[in-house]
C-alpha cells in the first residue's frame, strides 16, 4: 500500500504562472479581483502583492483559489482558457437573438398629469396623439422581423388604455400571425390602472396579457407624484392591482416605482406598501435624470449621493423581510446578481453591454417614429432627436436597424473598449447607457469620473458584494435572486 504519492507530487512543477485577463478594485483594505467573465474573489493586500508582482509559489491555498477562478494558469494549460471562452460565449449568446422587447406607444394621451413625465398630453383629440391601425400594422411587420425567439409586445403611453381598440386589434393580429411565425409571444400593458374595466380584464384573461403598473409607495406620495382629477391615483392603482391578482392571477401584475426627491427617506414605507399589496418584487429605481438633466446638463453625483442611502436602507430592509419569511425581491439587485453569480446576462436594457438600445428594446411611437429606447423618446419630446432611428412609414427595417443613430451609440459606448470601463473590475456586472450619458454630457460614452451612472452602479456593486460576503442567509438569498 505504499504506492500512494503525497500531494506535492501533484502540484504544479514550477511557479511559472501565467496571468489570465483579470481586473481589480481596492475596497476597504481588501482587493476585489474579477476574471474575464466576472467570477470574483477577495484577496488581502499581501496576497494581491504576490499576484501582481509575479511572486506566487508553485502551490499555496492562494494559488489554488486563483487557479479555480481562472485568474492564473499553468504555462501550456489550455483548459482555463477554454472554460473562460465557453463562459464568455454563454454570456453573449443573447446577442444573436436581438430585440425581444417591442414597445408600442398606443397613445400619448393621459388622464394623469405627472410633473416628471415628459411625454404625455392632456387632449381629447384621439386623432392627434393615438397610434393608427396603419402604423400599428407596419410596427408588427418590424416586430416579426426580429431574430429573437422570445417576443414581448408592451403597450405604453401616455395611458395606452385610452386607445384600447388598437391594443385589441394588435393583439389579435399578432396572435394570428404568430400561428405561422412560432415565436414565444407575450403581451404587456403598462397602465396606471385608472381605466381598468370588465372589458380590459376579460381581454387580458382571454389573451394572457400581463399588466405592468406604477406604484410609488404610500398614498400621499403616490398621489403627489401622479396628479389626476379626483386625486385618487393611488386608490385606483391599488384597487386595480388587487382586481388583477384576484381575477387574472397573482403573477399577472407587477408594479414599478418612480423615485422622486419626495421618495427619499421613505423607502421602508414604500416597500411596506408593496408587501401590503401582496407584491413579491420591488424595483428601487434611481431618480430619473431626464428633464432636469436636459435643462442643466449637470445631473450627476449630487443626486446619486442623495439616492444611495435610500437604496441601501431599502435593500437591507428587504433582506430582513426575507429573513423573517416574507418573500420580496429587489429587482435591480437581482439583475446585477445574475451577472455577478452566473454566466447569464439578463440583457436589462439599462445595464448591459453592448447597450440595450434597439437590440434589447425598441420603441414605436404613436406617429410611427422609431426610437432606440424609451428614454430616447423622452429626449425627443424635449427637442433632442438623437435616438430617433427612423419612421415606420418612410424607412425599412434594415434602414432602421442599421442606422448610424443606432450603430453609432452602440459602438461608442461598448464597455469592453470604453476608457475606464475596460479596466474596471465591475465591467462584467455593468453596462453601457449611451442615452443617459448623451443626456448628461452630450456624448454616448460620457465622462466616467463624473458620471452619475458610474457612481451609482459602482456603489451598488460594492454594496451587494459586501452583503453577499456578510452572512450565509444573504448569500443564499442572493443566489436565489440570481437564478430567477
Amino acid at each position, binding site marked *: 500500500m505504499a*504506492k500512494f504519492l503525497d500531494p506535492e507530487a501533484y502540484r504544479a512543477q514550477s511557479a511559472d504562472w501565467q496571468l489570465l485577463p483579470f481586473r481589480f478594485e481596492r475596497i476597504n483594505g481588501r482587493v476585489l479581483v474579477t476574471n474575464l467573465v466576472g467570477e470574483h474573489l477577495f484577496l488581502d493586500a499581501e496576497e494581491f502583492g504576490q499576484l501582481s508582482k509575479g511572486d506566487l509559489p508553485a502551490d499555496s491555498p492562494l494559488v489554488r483559489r486563483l487557479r479555480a477562478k481562472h485568474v492564473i494558469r499553468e504555462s501550456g494549460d489550455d*483548459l482555463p482558457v477554454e472554460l473562460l471562452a465557453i463562459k464568455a460565449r454563454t454570456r453573449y449568446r443573447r446577442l444573436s437573438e436581438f430585440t425581444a422587447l417591442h414597445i408600442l406607444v398606443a397613445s400619448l394621451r393621459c388622464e394623469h398629469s405627472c410633473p416628471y413625465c415628459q411625454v404625455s398630453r392632456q387632449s381629447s383629440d384621439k386623432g392627434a396623439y393615438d397610434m393608427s391601425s396603419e402604423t400599428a400594422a407596419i410596427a408588427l411587420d418590424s416586430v416579426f422581423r426580429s431574430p429573437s425567439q422570445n417576443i414581448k409586445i408592451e403597450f405604453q403611453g401616455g395611458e395606452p388604455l385610452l386607445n384600447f381598440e388598437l391594443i385589441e386589434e394588435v393583439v389579435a393580429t399578432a396572435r394570428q400571425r404568430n400561428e405561422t411565425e412560432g415565436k414565444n409571444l407575450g403581451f404587456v400593458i403598462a397602465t396606471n390602472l385608472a381605466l381598468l374595466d370588465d372589458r380590459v380584464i376579460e381581454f387580458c384573461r382571454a389573451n394572457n396579457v400581463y399588466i405592468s403598473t406604477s406604484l410609488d409607495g404610500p398614498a400621499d406620495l403616490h398621489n403627489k407624484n401622479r396628479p389626476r382629477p379626483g386625486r385618487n391615483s393611488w386608490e385606483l392603482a391599488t384597487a386595480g392591482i388587487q382586481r388583477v391578482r384576484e381575477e387574472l392571477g397573482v403573477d399577472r401584475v407587477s408594479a414599478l416605482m418612480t423615485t422622486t426627491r419626495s421618495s427619499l427617506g421613505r423607502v421602508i414605507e414604500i416597500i411596506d406598501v408593496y408587501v401590503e399589496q401582496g407584491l413579491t418584487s420591488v424595483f428601487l429605481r434611481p431618480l430619473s435624470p431626464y428633464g432636469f438633466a436636459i435643462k442643466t446638463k449637470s445631473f450627476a453625483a449630487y443626486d446619486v449621493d442623495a439616492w444611495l442611502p435610500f437604496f441601501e436602507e431599502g435593500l437591507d430592509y428587504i433582506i430582513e423581510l426575507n429573513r423573517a419569511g416574507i418573500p420580496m425581491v429587489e429587482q435591480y439587485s437581482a439583475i446585477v446578481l445574475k451577472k455577478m453569480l452566473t454566466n447569464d446576462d439578463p440583457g436589462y436594457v439599462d445595464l448591459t453591454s453592448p447597450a440595450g438600445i434597439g437590440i434589447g428594446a425598441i420603441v414605436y411611437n404613436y406617429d410611427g417614429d422609431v426610437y432606440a429606447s424609451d428614454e430616447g423618446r423622452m429626449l425627443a419630446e424635449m427637442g433632442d432627436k438623437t435616438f430617433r432611428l427612423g419612421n415606420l412609414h418612410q424607412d425599412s427595417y434594415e434602414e432602421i436597424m442599421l442606422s448610424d443613430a443606432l450603430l453609432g451609440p452602440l459602438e461608442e459606448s461598448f464597455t469592453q473598449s470604453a476608457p475606464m470601463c475596460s479596466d474596471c473590475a465591475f465591467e462584467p456586472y455593468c453596462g453601457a447607457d449611451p442615452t443617459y450619458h448623451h443626456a448628461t454630457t452630450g456624448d454616448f460614452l460620457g465622462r466616467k469620473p463624473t458620471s452619475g451612472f458610474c457612481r451609482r452602479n459602482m456603489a451598488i456593486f460594492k454594496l451587494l458584494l459586501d452583503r453577499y460576503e456578510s452572512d450565509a442567509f444573504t448569500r443564499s438569498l442572493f443566489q436565489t435572486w440570481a437564478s430567477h
Partner: protein
Amino acid sequence: MIALRGKATEVELSAPIARRVWKLVDAATLTPQRHSRAFLAGDDGQAPDGFDLYLSRSAASRPDQDATWLRLPEDLDYLSGGDVVSVSDDGERIRVLWRHQSHQNSILLTERCNHYCLMCSQPPKTREDDELLAQAFELLRLLPRDVAEIGFTGGEPTLYGQELIDLLRLCRNLHPEAQVHVLSNGTRFADPDFAAAWASIENPNMMVGIPIYGAEPARHDYVVQSKGAFNQTIPGILNLAQLGQRIEIRVALHKQTAPALPEIAEFIARNLPFVDQVALMGLEMIGLARANIPELWIDPTEYADELIEAVTLLDRSRIHTMIYNHQLCLIPRSIWPWTVRSISDWKNEYHAECASCNVKDDCGGFFFSAKYKVSENIRAIPIEGTQEPAVLQI
C-alpha cells in the same frame, strides 16, 4: 450484508461447465426455455428434465436428474428464479451477477483502472479480466425486457474502448426503457472520437457518473493519484455535454475534498452548469479507504457548514443535487430534503443506536464497512426531534 459470491459445497460434474453465465429458473418461473438456464430445485428436490445445470439450496434434497449439479452455500440460499449467476468451469465458484428483486444491481466490467483513488472501494488490479465484459454481454441477453435500471461499474469501464460502446449499444437495443448508469472517471471522453462513439449509442436513458474532487488540478489529481487527470476529465465532460449526453458529477466527501466542497460546487455551477445532477457521496470505508484512514477520515459533522453551502449553491443554480450515503443524525436537518437512501441493499446495515431512532426508515443507514470507522456522533433522533418537517421531500 448480502453475499454476492460463494463456493459450492458439493459439485457433481457430468462434464466441465461450458458456459459461465446462467439465469436461474425455479418452479415458479419455469418456462419452456432451457438455453443458458439453470434450474434451482425446491427443498423436495423435484425438478423438470432438460437443464444443463441444476442447483440446490444448502439444506435441500438433490434432484435426481443425471446432470451437472451443485449445492449452494448457505449465504446464497436467498437466490431464486430470475437471478443470474456466473459459475466457474469447475463448478466451485459462484458469483451473483443480478438479483431480480433489487433495484441496485451494478455490473462490474473490470477491476483495472487508470486512476488509483485514495478512497477507492474497488481497489484496482492490473490483471486482464476481459471475462467480466464477456459475462456482461451474456447477462444483458438474459435480463427481462422490462428491467428498470442497469448500472455498470469498474474499475474504469472505458478502458475497453469500442467494446464498451458495443456493450452499451446492445444494452440500449435489448432494454430500451431501462435507466442505464455508467461510472467512469471521464478521462477517456477527452478523446472526441470516443465521446462521439458514446453519443452514437443514442440512448436518452443513459447517464455517465463522473467524479470531480477539486476546482483545480492539484487537489483532484492528488485524490485520484494521477497527474493530469483533471485536465482530461473536465474536457471529457465538456465533450459529452457538447454532444448532449446526460452527466452526473460525483463528489466523494472525505478529509481531502470536504473542506473544498463550496469551491467545488461553485466550480460546477459556473463551469459545468449543464450537468444533469450532482451527487455528494459519503465515504465508504472499504478498499483503499481503509488503508488511508488518517488521510481520509473526517466526521461528517465537521463539514456540515460546507455541505449546507454547497447544497444551497447548487440548488439555487438549479442543479439537481443529492446527498448520498449520509446518516441523517450527522447532517443538519435543513438539508435532509436532499438526502437519498443510496447505500446498496447488499451493503446496508444500521448501528445499535439506530434501533430507537424515529427517522430510521428515511435514513441511508451505513455501509457494512462502517465497522471499520464510524462517527462518534451517531444519535437516535427522538420523536420530539421530528416536530420540524419530518417528511423528506426527495
